[in-house]
Protein backbone atom coordinates (compact mmCIF):
# COMPACT_ATOMS: atom_id res chain seq x y z
CA UNK A 1 0.00 0.00 0.00
CA UNK A 2 1.36 3.42 -0.95
CA UNK A 3 2.14 6.17 1.52
CA UNK A 4 -0.73 8.16 0.07
CA UNK A 5 -3.22 5.38 0.73
CA UNK A 6 -1.85 4.93 4.26
CA UNK A 7 -2.48 8.59 4.89
CA UNK A 8 -6.04 8.41 3.56
CA UNK A 9 -6.71 5.36 5.67
CA UNK A 10 -5.34 7.05 8.78
CA UNK A 11 -7.45 10.13 8.16
CA UNK A 12 -10.54 7.97 7.60
CA UNK A 13 -9.90 6.26 10.95
CA UNK A 14 -9.50 9.61 12.66
CA UNK A 15 -12.75 10.78 11.12
CA UNK A 16 -14.54 7.62 12.19
CA UNK A 17 -13.12 7.82 15.72
CA UNK A 18 -14.58 11.29 16.01
CA UNK A 19 -18.10 10.10 15.24
CA UNK A 20 -20.18 9.06 18.18
CA UNK A 21 -22.91 6.54 17.45
CA UNK A 22 -26.16 7.64 19.12
CA UNK A 23 -27.07 5.52 22.14
CA UNK A 24 -30.70 5.68 21.08
CA UNK A 25 -30.09 3.13 18.32
CA UNK A 26 -28.74 0.53 20.72
CA UNK A 27 -31.33 1.26 23.40
CA UNK A 28 -34.27 0.92 21.06
CA UNK A 29 -32.82 -2.20 19.50
CA UNK A 30 -32.30 -3.83 22.87
CA UNK A 31 -35.77 -2.98 24.14
CA UNK A 32 -37.22 -4.48 20.98
CA UNK A 33 -35.03 -7.55 21.35
CA UNK A 34 -36.27 -7.90 24.94
CA UNK A 35 -39.88 -7.76 23.76
CA UNK A 36 -39.18 -10.34 21.06
CA UNK A 37 -37.29 -12.50 23.57
CA UNK A 38 -40.39 -12.76 25.72
CA UNK A 39 -42.37 -14.09 22.77
CA UNK A 40 -39.80 -15.79 20.58
CA UNK A 41 -41.09 -17.14 17.30
CA UNK A 42 -41.79 -20.84 17.51
CA UNK A 43 -39.37 -22.99 15.57
CA UNK A 44 -40.77 -25.27 12.88
CA UNK A 45 -40.08 -28.35 14.98
CA UNK A 46 -42.14 -27.15 17.98
CA UNK A 47 -45.14 -29.17 19.15
CA UNK A 48 -47.57 -26.44 18.10
CA UNK A 49 -46.36 -26.39 14.50
CA UNK A 50 -46.32 -30.17 14.33
CA UNK A 51 -49.90 -30.23 15.57
CA UNK A 52 -50.91 -27.67 12.95
CA UNK A 53 -49.11 -29.69 10.29
CA UNK A 54 -50.94 -32.88 11.29
CA UNK A 55 -54.29 -31.04 11.32
CA UNK A 56 -53.60 -29.58 7.89
CA UNK A 57 -52.65 -33.01 6.50
CA UNK A 58 -55.80 -34.55 8.00
CA UNK A 59 -57.94 -31.83 6.40
CA UNK A 60 -56.30 -32.45 3.05
CA UNK A 61 -56.99 -36.18 3.32
CA UNK A 62 -60.66 -35.57 4.24
CA UNK A 63 -60.99 -33.12 1.37
CA UNK A 64 -59.43 -35.64 -1.00
CA UNK A 65 -61.82 -38.39 0.13
CA UNK A 66 -64.82 -36.07 -0.29
CA UNK A 67 -63.77 -35.06 -3.79
CA UNK A 68 -63.12 -38.67 -4.77
CA UNK A 69 -66.50 -39.82 -3.42
CA UNK A 70 -68.32 -37.05 -5.26
CA UNK A 71 -66.55 -37.80 -8.52
CA UNK A 72 -67.27 -41.51 -8.09
CA UNK A 73 -71.01 -40.83 -7.72
CA UNK A 74 -71.04 -38.58 -10.75
CA UNK A 75 -69.18 -41.23 -12.73
CA UNK A 76 -71.80 -43.81 -11.71
CA UNK A 77 -74.57 -41.60 -13.08
CA UNK A 78 -72.69 -41.15 -16.31
CA UNK A 79 -72.09 -44.90 -16.51
CA UNK A 80 -75.87 -45.55 -16.26
CA UNK A 81 -76.49 -43.06 -19.05
CA UNK A 82 -73.95 -44.82 -21.19
CA UNK A 83 -75.78 -48.16 -20.84
CA UNK A 84 -79.04 -46.60 -22.00
CA UNK A 85 -77.33 -44.95 -24.92
CA UNK A 86 -75.78 -48.26 -26.06
CA UNK A 87 -79.17 -50.01 -26.03
CA UNK A 88 -80.74 -47.20 -28.03
CA UNK A 89 -78.28 -47.34 -30.90
CA UNK A 90 -78.17 -51.09 -30.99
CA UNK A 91 -79.16 -51.29 -34.69
CA UNK A 92 -76.44 -51.23 -37.34
CA UNK A 93 -75.78 -47.69 -38.58
CA UNK A 94 -77.08 -48.45 -42.11
CA UNK A 95 -80.43 -49.79 -40.89
CA UNK A 96 -80.81 -46.96 -38.42
CA UNK A 97 -80.27 -44.45 -41.16
CA UNK A 98 -82.92 -46.12 -43.40
CA UNK A 99 -85.44 -46.18 -40.56
CA UNK A 100 -84.88 -42.55 -39.75
CA UNK A 101 -85.21 -41.55 -43.41
CA UNK A 102 -88.43 -43.49 -43.82
CA UNK A 103 -89.94 -42.00 -40.63
CA UNK A 104 -88.91 -38.53 -41.69
CA UNK A 105 -90.49 -38.89 -45.13
CA UNK A 106 -93.72 -40.24 -43.62
CA UNK A 107 -93.93 -37.35 -41.15
CA UNK A 108 -93.26 -34.87 -43.94
CA UNK A 109 -96.01 -36.37 -46.15
CA UNK A 110 -98.47 -36.33 -43.24
CA UNK A 111 -97.76 -32.68 -42.66
CA UNK A 112 -98.28 -31.91 -46.35
CA UNK A 113 -101.59 -33.80 -46.32
CA UNK A 114 -102.73 -31.96 -43.25
CA UNK A 115 -101.80 -28.63 -44.77
CA UNK A 116 -103.68 -29.59 -47.90
CA UNK A 117 -106.76 -30.62 -45.90
CA UNK A 118 -106.73 -27.48 -43.78
CA UNK A 119 -105.91 -25.08 -46.61
CA UNK A 120 -108.73 -22.73 -47.42
CA UNK A 121 -109.80 -23.26 -51.02
CA UNK A 122 -112.78 -20.91 -51.18
CA UNK A 123 -115.18 -19.01 -48.97
CA UNK A 124 -118.89 -18.59 -49.12
CA UNK A 125 -121.42 -16.40 -47.35
CA UNK A 126 -124.18 -18.20 -45.35
CA UNK A 127 -126.74 -17.70 -42.62
CA UNK A 128 -127.01 -19.66 -39.38
CA UNK A 129 -130.28 -21.42 -38.66
CA UNK A 130 -131.44 -23.95 -36.12
CA UNK A 131 -133.31 -27.06 -37.03
CA UNK A 132 -134.35 -29.13 -34.06
CA UNK A 133 -131.25 -29.98 -32.05
CA UNK A 134 -128.78 -29.15 -34.82
CA UNK A 135 -127.42 -25.99 -36.36
CA UNK A 136 -127.33 -25.60 -40.10
CA UNK A 137 -125.94 -23.19 -42.66
CA UNK A 138 -128.27 -21.81 -45.31
CA UNK A 139 -126.56 -20.94 -48.57
CA UNK A 140 -127.97 -19.65 -51.83
CA UNK A 141 -127.10 -22.23 -54.43
CA UNK A 142 -127.39 -25.52 -52.53
CA UNK A 143 -129.39 -27.18 -49.77
CA UNK A 144 -128.73 -26.25 -46.17
CA UNK A 145 -125.59 -27.79 -44.63
CA UNK A 146 -126.05 -29.45 -41.23
CA UNK A 147 -123.39 -28.81 -38.63
CA UNK A 148 -122.79 -31.77 -36.36
CA UNK A 149 -121.72 -31.13 -32.77
CA UNK A 150 -118.49 -33.10 -33.56
CA UNK A 151 -117.62 -30.72 -36.44
CA UNK A 152 -118.31 -27.67 -34.27
CA UNK A 153 -116.10 -29.11 -31.51
CA UNK A 154 -113.31 -29.86 -34.00
CA UNK A 155 -113.44 -26.34 -35.45
CA UNK A 156 -113.47 -24.81 -31.98
CA UNK A 157 -110.42 -26.92 -30.98
CA UNK A 158 -108.45 -25.73 -34.01
CA UNK A 159 -109.48 -22.12 -33.31
CA UNK A 160 -111.41 -21.99 -36.60
CA UNK A 161 -114.80 -21.23 -35.13
CA UNK A 162 -115.24 -17.52 -34.64
CA UNK A 163 -118.94 -16.96 -34.19
CA UNK A 164 -121.83 -16.63 -31.77
CA UNK A 165 -124.30 -19.44 -32.30
CA UNK A 166 -127.40 -17.42 -32.95
CA UNK A 167 -130.12 -18.09 -35.50
CA UNK A 168 -130.24 -15.62 -38.39
CA UNK A 169 -126.59 -14.50 -37.96
CA UNK A 170 -124.62 -14.06 -41.17
CA UNK A 171 -121.34 -16.00 -41.35
CA UNK A 172 -118.51 -16.68 -43.75
CA UNK A 173 -117.79 -20.37 -44.35
CA UNK A 174 -114.33 -21.53 -45.48
CA UNK A 175 -114.09 -24.75 -47.53
CA UNK A 176 -111.05 -26.88 -48.31
CA UNK A 177 -110.16 -28.10 -51.81
CA UNK A 178 -112.04 -31.33 -51.03
CA UNK A 179 -115.16 -29.37 -50.06
CA UNK A 180 -114.84 -29.87 -46.30
CA UNK A 181 -115.71 -27.01 -43.92
CA UNK A 182 -112.46 -25.79 -42.33
CA UNK A 183 -113.71 -22.59 -40.66
CA UNK A 184 -116.81 -20.51 -39.82
CA UNK A 185 -116.58 -16.88 -38.77
CA UNK A 186 -119.07 -14.06 -38.08
CA UNK A 187 -119.63 -11.78 -41.02
CA UNK A 188 -121.24 -8.38 -41.47
CA UNK A 189 -122.09 -9.11 -45.08
CA UNK A 190 -125.76 -10.07 -45.52
CA UNK A 191 -126.68 -13.14 -47.56
CA UNK A 192 -128.22 -11.96 -50.82
CA UNK A 193 -129.52 -14.69 -53.14
Amino acid at each position, binding site marked *: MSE*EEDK*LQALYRQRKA*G*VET*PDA*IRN*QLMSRATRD*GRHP*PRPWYSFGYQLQLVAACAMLVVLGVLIKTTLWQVNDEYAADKVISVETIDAPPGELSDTLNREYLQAKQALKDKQLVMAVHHKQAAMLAKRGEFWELKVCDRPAISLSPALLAKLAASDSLGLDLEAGRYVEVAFSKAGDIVGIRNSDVALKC
Partner: protein
Amino acid sequence: MGIGIALRGWLSRSPTNEQLMSKYARERQRQVLAQLYDNCGADLYHFLLSLSEPHMAEDISQQVWIKVMEKSHLFEPRGQFKSWLFTIGRRLLIDELRRSASHQTQSFDDSTHASAPQHSSDLVCFNRALDALPFEQKEAFCLQQEGFSLDEISHITHANKETIKSRLRYARNRLSQALQTQLQDGED
Protein backbone atom coordinates in the same frame (compact mmCIF):
# COMPACT_ATOMS: atom_id res chain seq x y z
CA MET B 1 -15.45 -16.85 1.45
CA GLY B 2 -16.96 -19.61 3.54
CA ILE B 3 -13.57 -21.24 4.23
CA GLY B 4 -12.08 -17.89 5.23
CA ILE B 5 -14.85 -17.30 7.71
CA ALA B 6 -14.50 -20.83 9.12
CA LEU B 7 -10.72 -20.37 9.51
CA ARG B 8 -11.24 -17.08 11.31
CA GLY B 9 -13.63 -18.87 13.63
CA TRP B 10 -11.09 -21.59 14.44
CA LEU B 11 -8.20 -19.20 14.92
CA SER B 12 -9.99 -16.68 17.10
CA ARG B 13 -11.50 -17.65 20.38
CA SER B 14 -14.34 -15.16 20.22
CA PRO B 15 -17.16 -16.21 17.88
CA THR B 16 -17.28 -14.55 14.47
CA ASN B 17 -20.13 -12.29 13.45
CA GLU B 18 -21.40 -15.07 11.20
CA GLN B 19 -21.49 -17.54 14.09
CA LEU B 20 -23.21 -14.96 16.27
CA MET B 21 -25.81 -14.27 13.59
CA SER B 22 -26.50 -17.97 13.10
CA LYS B 23 -26.85 -18.35 16.83
CA TYR B 24 -29.20 -15.39 17.02
CA ALA B 25 -31.32 -16.79 14.17
CA ARG B 26 -31.64 -20.06 16.11
CA GLU B 27 -32.01 -18.87 19.68
CA ARG B 28 -33.10 -15.20 19.44
CA GLN B 29 -30.98 -14.28 22.45
CA ARG B 30 -30.82 -10.58 23.27
CA GLN B 31 -27.19 -10.67 24.36
CA VAL B 32 -26.12 -12.22 21.03
CA LEU B 33 -27.77 -9.37 19.15
CA ALA B 34 -26.09 -6.91 21.52
CA GLN B 35 -22.72 -8.46 20.72
CA LEU B 36 -23.40 -8.19 16.99
CA TYR B 37 -24.38 -4.56 17.41
CA ASP B 38 -21.25 -3.79 19.40
CA ASN B 39 -19.14 -5.37 16.65
CA CYS B 40 -20.73 -3.63 13.65
CA GLY B 41 -23.12 -0.92 14.85
CA ALA B 42 -20.62 1.95 14.78
CA ASP B 43 -19.24 0.94 11.36
CA LEU B 44 -22.72 0.89 9.84
CA TYR B 45 -23.73 4.20 11.41
CA HIS B 46 -20.56 5.90 10.21
CA PHE B 47 -21.04 4.55 6.70
CA LEU B 48 -24.65 5.80 6.61
CA LEU B 49 -23.65 9.14 8.13
CA SER B 50 -20.99 9.64 5.47
CA LEU B 51 -23.65 9.22 2.80
CA SER B 52 -26.50 11.15 4.43
CA GLU B 53 -27.08 13.27 7.53
CA PRO B 54 -27.23 12.37 11.26
CA HIS B 55 -30.98 12.09 11.61
CA MET B 56 -31.35 9.92 8.54
CA ALA B 57 -28.31 7.81 9.45
CA GLU B 58 -29.79 7.12 12.87
CA ASP B 59 -33.17 6.30 11.44
CA ILE B 60 -31.77 3.98 8.77
CA SER B 61 -29.48 2.28 11.29
CA GLN B 62 -32.50 1.57 13.43
CA GLN B 63 -34.36 0.08 10.47
CA VAL B 64 -31.39 -2.03 9.43
CA TRP B 65 -31.08 -3.65 12.83
CA ILE B 66 -34.81 -4.30 12.96
CA LYS B 67 -34.49 -5.99 9.56
CA VAL B 68 -31.63 -8.07 10.95
CA MET B 69 -33.95 -9.23 13.74
CA GLU B 70 -36.88 -9.92 11.46
CA LYS B 71 -34.97 -11.52 8.60
CA SER B 72 -32.40 -13.40 10.65
CA HIS B 73 -33.63 -16.70 9.17
CA LEU B 74 -32.64 -15.45 5.70
CA PHE B 75 -28.98 -14.95 6.62
CA GLU B 76 -26.66 -17.35 4.76
CA PRO B 77 -24.06 -18.57 7.28
CA ARG B 78 -21.57 -19.00 4.41
CA GLY B 79 -21.70 -15.27 3.63
CA GLN B 80 -20.18 -12.42 5.57
CA PHE B 81 -22.48 -10.83 8.12
CA LYS B 82 -21.05 -7.33 7.75
CA SER B 83 -21.50 -7.46 4.00
CA TRP B 84 -25.16 -8.53 4.47
CA LEU B 85 -25.66 -5.74 7.03
CA PHE B 86 -24.19 -3.06 4.76
CA THR B 87 -26.20 -4.35 1.78
CA ILE B 88 -29.41 -3.92 3.76
CA GLY B 89 -28.26 -0.53 5.01
CA ARG B 90 -27.35 0.76 1.57
CA ARG B 91 -30.64 -0.40 0.06
CA LEU B 92 -32.70 1.28 2.78
CA LEU B 93 -30.63 4.45 2.48
CA ILE B 94 -31.06 4.61 -1.31
CA ASP B 95 -34.82 4.12 -0.88
CA GLU B 96 -34.96 6.91 1.67
CA LEU B 97 -32.83 9.24 -0.42
CA ARG B 98 -35.06 8.61 -3.42
CA ARG B 99 -38.09 9.39 -1.30
CA SER B 100 -36.66 12.59 0.05
CA ALA B 101 -34.95 13.28 -3.31
CA SER B 102 -32.04 14.91 -1.62
CA HIS B 103 -28.55 13.54 -1.52
CA GLN B 104 -27.38 16.07 1.00
CA THR B 105 -24.54 14.92 3.21
CA GLN B 106 -23.45 16.09 6.57
CA SER B 107 -20.42 18.29 6.71
CA PHE B 108 -17.94 16.96 9.21
CA ASP B 109 -16.34 20.34 9.79
CA ASP B 110 -19.03 22.07 11.77
CA SER B 111 -22.11 20.75 13.47
CA THR B 112 -21.16 17.08 13.87
CA HIS B 113 -18.06 17.81 15.84
CA ALA B 114 -18.98 20.99 17.57
CA SER B 115 -17.93 19.55 20.91
CA ALA B 116 -15.01 17.52 19.61
CA PRO B 117 -11.42 18.63 20.15
CA GLN B 118 -9.82 20.76 17.50
CA HIS B 119 -9.02 18.67 14.42
CA SER B 120 -5.85 18.78 12.47
CA SER B 121 -6.07 20.84 9.31
CA ASP B 122 -5.46 17.60 7.34
CA LEU B 123 -8.55 15.98 8.84
CA VAL B 124 -10.69 19.05 8.22
CA CYS B 125 -9.49 19.10 4.64
CA PHE B 126 -10.06 15.34 4.28
CA ASN B 127 -13.60 15.62 5.65
CA ARG B 128 -14.43 18.43 3.28
CA ALA B 129 -12.98 16.58 0.32
CA LEU B 130 -14.80 13.36 1.23
CA ASP B 131 -18.09 15.19 1.66
CA ALA B 132 -17.61 16.80 -1.72
CA LEU B 133 -17.14 13.45 -3.51
CA PRO B 134 -19.96 12.16 -5.73
CA PHE B 135 -22.22 9.65 -3.96
CA GLU B 136 -20.93 6.56 -5.80
CA GLN B 137 -17.25 7.42 -5.28
CA LYS B 138 -17.78 8.22 -1.61
CA GLU B 139 -19.71 5.00 -1.12
CA ALA B 140 -17.00 2.89 -2.78
CA PHE B 141 -14.23 4.62 -0.81
CA CYS B 142 -16.00 4.21 2.55
CA LEU B 143 -16.72 0.54 1.88
CA GLN B 144 -13.09 -0.09 1.02
CA GLN B 145 -12.01 1.68 4.21
CA GLU B 146 -14.45 -0.56 6.12
CA GLY B 147 -12.39 -3.53 4.93
CA PHE B 148 -14.54 -4.83 2.07
CA SER B 149 -12.84 -6.39 -0.94
CA LEU B 150 -13.57 -5.32 -4.51
CA ASP B 151 -15.87 -8.33 -4.92
CA GLU B 152 -17.77 -7.45 -1.79
CA ILE B 153 -18.12 -3.78 -2.74
CA SER B 154 -19.32 -4.87 -6.15
CA HIS B 155 -21.88 -7.15 -4.49
CA ILE B 156 -23.08 -4.50 -2.04
CA THR B 157 -23.40 -1.73 -4.61
CA HIS B 158 -24.59 -3.92 -7.52
CA ALA B 159 -21.89 -2.46 -9.77
CA ASN B 160 -19.24 -4.41 -11.66
CA LYS B 161 -15.68 -4.64 -10.45
CA GLU B 162 -14.19 -2.41 -13.12
CA THR B 163 -16.66 0.35 -12.28
CA ILE B 164 -15.76 0.03 -8.61
CA LYS B 165 -12.05 0.20 -9.42
CA SER B 166 -12.64 3.32 -11.45
CA ARG B 167 -14.72 4.96 -8.71
CA LEU B 168 -12.05 4.17 -6.12
CA ARG B 169 -9.29 5.59 -8.30
CA TYR B 170 -11.20 8.82 -8.83
CA ALA B 171 -12.04 9.09 -5.13
CA ARG B 172 -8.41 8.56 -4.03
CA ASN B 173 -7.11 11.01 -6.59
CA ARG B 174 -9.54 13.71 -5.54
CA LEU B 175 -8.83 13.22 -1.85
CA SER B 176 -5.05 13.20 -2.39
CA GLN B 177 -5.31 16.25 -4.59
CA ALA B 178 -7.30 18.09 -1.93
CA LEU B 179 -4.75 17.21 0.72
CA GLN B 180 -1.89 18.24 -1.57
CA THR B 181 -3.52 21.58 -2.27
CA GLN B 182 -4.10 22.15 1.40
CA LEU B 183 -0.44 21.33 2.13
CA GLN B 184 0.78 23.78 -0.51
CA ASP B 185 -1.52 26.51 0.82
CA GLY B 186 -0.13 25.87 4.32
CA GLU B 187 3.45 26.20 3.08
CA ASP B 188 2.62 29.44 1.26
